[in-house]
């Protein structure tokens, strides 16, 4: 048991050090990532100015800015750049062999290196994030949420990370069958961009569409945490949302495990 924990700890430490190599590039990249939001904010400012009461379905200008900034945080937890394509690449190039002979769990290894990646990311991006949020503090009209709501917010962020990880891992593991998953990933990215709430607050959608996004797990990756923070989802609905998110997590953990188990049985590695 102790030896096992020590192994995982070593993996985590190595991954963290690996990530810290490119810290300058990282910090700059984080600041640049706010740029697309700037245009989005100007767009909504212009749109809201044409509407009589200056708000769309409860989003006034301040809420809109706050919403976009909060989705940046949601995405900082839930986005997994290169995870699915990396898994598919390892399957295709045969690198995955090494996990089949070593006593290390492939998915567990990926999860740890991803946690390391995220930890380093938060460490370095905390500065730029704090700077931008400080500049924009005036847009958060309602200030900080209640402590218990804030707790739910943090929970929804962490669950967003886990959901994002297992969802993408599942997609990547389809690579055992398809080998090339880039077109599948493009479709996923497309849906993710529009239906996770990254592009606009999902509650602006009219009927059949709003039902659709409610049925998909994507909204937990960006929209849900942000709307918890802003108090758009409260009380029973908030608790229900967290339970549904948990159900999705369980679903994708099982799916990823199942695909890996079936995939390894199907896989044949050649060469050394």
């Amino acid at each position, binding site marked *: 048991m102790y030896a096992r924990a020590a192994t995982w700890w070593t993996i985590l430490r190595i991954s963290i050090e690996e990530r810290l190599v490119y810290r300058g590039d990282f910090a700059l990249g984080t600041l640049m990532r706010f740029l*697309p939001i700037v245009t989005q904010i*100007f767009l909504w*400012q212009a*749109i809201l100015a044409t509407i009589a009461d200056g708000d769309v379905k409860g989003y006034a200008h301040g809420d809109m800015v706050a919403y976009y900034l909060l989705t940046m945080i949601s995405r900082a937890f839930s986005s997994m750049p290169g995870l699915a394509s990396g898994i598919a690449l390892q399957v295709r190039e045969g690198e995955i062999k090494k996990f089949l002979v070593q006593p290390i769990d492939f998915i567990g290894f990926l999860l740890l290196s991803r946690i390391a990646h995220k930890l380093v990311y938060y460490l370095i991006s905390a500065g730029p994030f704090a700077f931008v949020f400080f500049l924009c503090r005036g847009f958060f009209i309602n200030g900080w949420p209640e402590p218990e709501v804030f707790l739910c917010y943090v929970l929804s962020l962490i669950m967003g990370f886990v959901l994002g990880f297992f969802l993408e891992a599942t997609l990547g593991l389809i690579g055992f069958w398809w080998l090339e998953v880039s077109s599948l990933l493009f479709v996923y990215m497309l849906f993710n961009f*529009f239906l996770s709430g990254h592009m606009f607050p999902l509650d602006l*959608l009219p009927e059949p569409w709003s039902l659709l996004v409610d049925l998909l797990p994507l909204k937990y990756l960006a929209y849900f945490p942000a709307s918890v923070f802003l108090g758009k989802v409260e009380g029973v609905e908030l608790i229900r949302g967290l339970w549904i998110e948990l159900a999705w997590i369980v679903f994708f953990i099982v799916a990823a495990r199942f695909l890996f188990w079936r995939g390894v049985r199907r896989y044949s590695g050649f060469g050394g």
Partner: protein
Amino acid sequence: MTTAKRAPYLQVFKTFLRNSLVREMTFRSNFVIQCISSLSWTVMNLGFYLLIFSHADQIGPDTGWGKYEFFVFLSTTMFINTFVQAFFMPNAQEFSELIRRGNLDFALLKPIDTQFLISLSKVEWSACANFMAAGVLFIFSVWQLMARPENPLSLSWFAIVLYLFYLACGVVILYSLMISLAATSIWLGRNQSLYNFWFYITNFARYPMEIYQQGWGLPLWFLFTFIVPVLVVVNVPARLMAQPVAETSPSTTFLAVFAVVATVGSFVASRWIFTRALLSYRSASS
């Protein structure tokens, strides 16, 4: 070298076109998938704007960017972007690899202008799908503007020629920006964030410039109009086409004249940056 025969640029370009088409047709299903995926991106985007216009009737008070005017704007963006994507994007991305691996040597040795060679050698035909989608959207929106009862749009041949001219200007400005960014990879060794940087900058060009013309948007508006002129790329042709009423206003005339200056300026500047960058090229291993 003045006595050397002028390289047959047009013929070489035709060969590039043909080769790329052959390459794309070798992987036909991949081609179809690429067309479909870029089209679905467009459809989603259109959905987003339809959502906006279900809540508001124009973008910004008194800017004149109503639903169909904005769709003319959007199709103009698509025309220019697909053009850049088809001709320059694949090459600019490859340029950084050419440098890193030292393969630029081969391009330098060929008896043809290096910038021409590395800018156009690969053409992405699948961008045609989006180009056609833009065409449909454009025709539909212009028709809607012409058919509306109040203040209908009347099109003159002059307006169409002017529109095409400014589309070309837009493409040249974006090309200049892209090739300058790509050229920096000679100094940096490798420039993987080229695509990101490109995306972040051109992101500003996607909306009418009126939305920046207030408050703390003004410095941005100034920066992206006069220093890095990406805002004039779509705004000028779209405004001339969709809002001919504004054609006579001094600001539009000024912008139209400025757009020509900006086009020539960016092209000359990018050419200068490119040739300067080539001078610093020191091959890689061998």
